[in-house]
């Protein structure tokens, strides 16, 4: 018993010491969760920045949950609806999740900074009718554009269409190139409603009627749909992307482009970092602006925003983290290291240096930044509309059926109109 007594005594003393000295400090640390998806290296960059923040702010610890893009789109809305979501998340469907977003205005030191630098993009994060809330900031502004395998053009001995070339010019050229070099994918367009709208806007779609209600299937839309349909018929587009999966499933051609199987790949600026990293010296590639049509040459804008949620138990701490990350030097470093087009107006004006970018990536970023300046108001409105993803998904799902030969284009148009009406009605049901 005597041998046991000193052990118990020292254990009790250690416990008291831990409570007395370690206890309060540990209790003061607030743990926040941030859900994050990555296209390239931005997750690593964000982890670095958060580590630095934590070194300067010992009272806040941020757990960075790096999740797949699909989880952000499918699981996060469920988590938020059940009140079990993270404190912050990097999201793409900013309009769809706006009802869960935290208005940080009362918590920010300088809301004016946010208005000045993120103003046009804040509209994308607000609920309909709200003109003031500040829920977050853009981690990147994206613009659609095409990546072209320059080496394949050179091998085929065919000149690349120049600036302001139309979709038809590009389609003709890539078909010739693919025929000569035996590339299986002359033209690839992401199976995504957003990317389809890059084509539709340039074909003159207006998306909304005069009274402001969605009017999806107009002449511009039909022109774009017909092009996609015809390209599949003629083999310019392979059915492997649009015709091989069902519903609203996204299907990109990243791997095919990296393997030099695609002559021209319409995707967007977010691919730059990974192409620069994975293609290396395998072949030469360039980014070209969105091709043109009767509606102009506008790209579709988009992007991802880091948004705070009102279900957080620690709004003040969340605002501190957001202020740090949205500050000019930190955000400049983030954009620069991630090779992203800035979604911060001040930084966009000053320009971002991309010292780690390869020559191809640097040129691509320059091209995309220039494209961002020429985005049409229709394209901005399409992206900012709260139900835009309902429209994008209906378009992709029904056009996919037409492309695979299951329905006609006329049937697809009727279904798109019906799907959009039905889903908006369901969303508005109280």
């Amino acid at each position, binding site marked *: 018993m005597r041998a046991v007594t000193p052990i118990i005594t020292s254990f009790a003393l250690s416990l008291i010491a831990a409570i007395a000295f370690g206890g309060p400090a540990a209790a003061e640390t607030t743990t926040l969760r941030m859900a994050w998806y990555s296209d390239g290296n931005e997750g690593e960059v964000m982890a670095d920045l958060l580590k630095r923040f934590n070194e300067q702010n010992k009272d806040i610890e941020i757990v960075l949950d790096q999740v797949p893009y699909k989880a952000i789109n499918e699981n996060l809305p469920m988590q938020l609806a059940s009140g079990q979501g993270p404190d912050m998340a990097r999201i793409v469907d900013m309009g769809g999740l706006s009802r869960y977003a935290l208005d940080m205005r009362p918590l920010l030191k300088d809301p004016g900074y946010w208005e000045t630098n993120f103003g046009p993009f804040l509209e994308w994060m607000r609920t309909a009718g709200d003109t003031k809330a500040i829920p977050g900031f853009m981690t990147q502004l994206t613009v659609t554009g095409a990546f072209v395998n320059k080496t394949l053009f050179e091998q085929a001995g065919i000149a690349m269409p120049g600036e302001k070339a139309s979709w038809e010019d590009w389609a003709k050229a890539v078909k010739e190139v693919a025929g000569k070099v035996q590339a299986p994918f002359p033209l690839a367009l992401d199976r995504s409603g957003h990317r389809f709208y890059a084509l539709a806007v340039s074909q003159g779609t207006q998306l909304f009627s005069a009274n402001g209600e969605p009017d999806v299937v107009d002449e511009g839309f039909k022109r774009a749909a017909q092009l996609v349909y015809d390209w599949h018929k003629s083999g310019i587009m392979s*059915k492997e992307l649009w015709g091989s999966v069902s519903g609203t499933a996204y299907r990109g051609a990243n791997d095919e482009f990296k393997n030099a199987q695609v002559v021209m790949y319409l995707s967007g600026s977010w691919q730059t970092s990974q192409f620069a990293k994975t293609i290396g010296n395998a072949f030469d590639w360039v980014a070209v602006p969105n091709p043109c049509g009767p509606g102009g040459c506008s790209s579709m804008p988009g992007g991802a925003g880091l948004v705070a949620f009102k279900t957080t138990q620690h709004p003040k701490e969340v605002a501190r983290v957001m202020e740090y990350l949205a500050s000019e030097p930190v955000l400049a470093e983030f954009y620069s290291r991630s090779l992203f087009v800035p979604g911060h107006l001040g930084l966009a004006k000053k320009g971002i240096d991309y010292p780690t970018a390869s020559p191809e990536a640097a040129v691509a970023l320059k091209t995309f930044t220039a494209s961002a300046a020429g985005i049409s108001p229709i394209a901005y409105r399409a992206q900012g509309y709260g139900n835009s*993803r309902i429209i994008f998904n209906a378009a992709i799902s029904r056009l996919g059926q037409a492309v695979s030969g299951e329905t006609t284009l006329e049937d697809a148009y009727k279904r798109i109109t019906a799907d959009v009406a039905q889903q908006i009605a369901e969303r508005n049901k109280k």
Partner: protein
Amino acid sequence: MSDISPVARPERGTDTGALARLGQVAVLPVGAALRLLDPPMQWLQRVIGARRMAYVFLLPNFVFFGLFVFLPIGINVVFSVTGGTALFPSQRPYVGGEQFAYLFDCGSYLDPSTCREDHFWRGVANTAKFVVFQVTAMVLFSLITALVLNMKIRGRGFFRAVYFFPVLLSPVVVALIWKWILQRDGLLNAAITTLGGQKILFFVDPSWAMFWAVFVSVWAHMGFYTLILLAGLQAIPADLYEAAEMDATPRWRVLIRITLPLLWPNMIVVIVLALIKGAQTFDEVFVLTGGGPGTATLMVVQYIYETAFSSQVQNFGLAAAASVVLGVVLFVLTLLQFAAARRKEV
């Protein structure tokens, strides 16, 4: 005298004796814990009577099933009569049979394009097609395999293990392996081009996509059904075969007159189980084809999943209504299985 108890004392001699002792020691705490329960259980038996004690023992299972099976079914039914996108039932407006009316609003049930919710009916048609082909192929190949594995062939144990092995794999793993084999630059196309053929885009052609969906499903699950049939084959009395041999009955006649009739109860179980599993198919086909091309391999369960979780407007009400419809179909199939099992017992 040693202070080691007789139970814990290691026994010299055989290893099995030592192991048995070790096992007895290991279960000692369990035995002690169970003995603690004796007095309250005896008291309960005195109070409610021995006959009702059965319900006490069934209670844990009832609670488990209630919480994890019947409660979700009830919640699903509640969701099916509500609308909107809210997650909690209390926040969802009651819409009565609106979701069911929407699902069943069809010009002709045989033509999905005339239905308001055409994707659901395409899913129903695809599932029906899948079930017919899959169950037929499953029963046929399982039977052939079981018959072969029941013969005295060399390496029988090895082959039994080989055929059962895919059953142990996760459906997602199975689908990913086959996707890798079947894609444009996959193993199969590499073999075809090596032999001088042209690449086949299996996932672009609706017929090929359905064929591979059925094939992969049969490949993955055949071992399980083979095992059931093998057990049935081994239960057939050997003297029947000996009598047939003495009568010089041809082998095909033995199969038709002895083996298949006596195996029929097992076949019924296999058919009904395969039907139920086929109607529930989701994971393998979803990973393999994504429901495409178009909606050529979209199954009902995929429709339910996408309507509830991956569509932009998460329409839980409509998905729940479709689940109720599928549940009724599965319930009927389960009744069939029960009926078949009872017939087997008789």
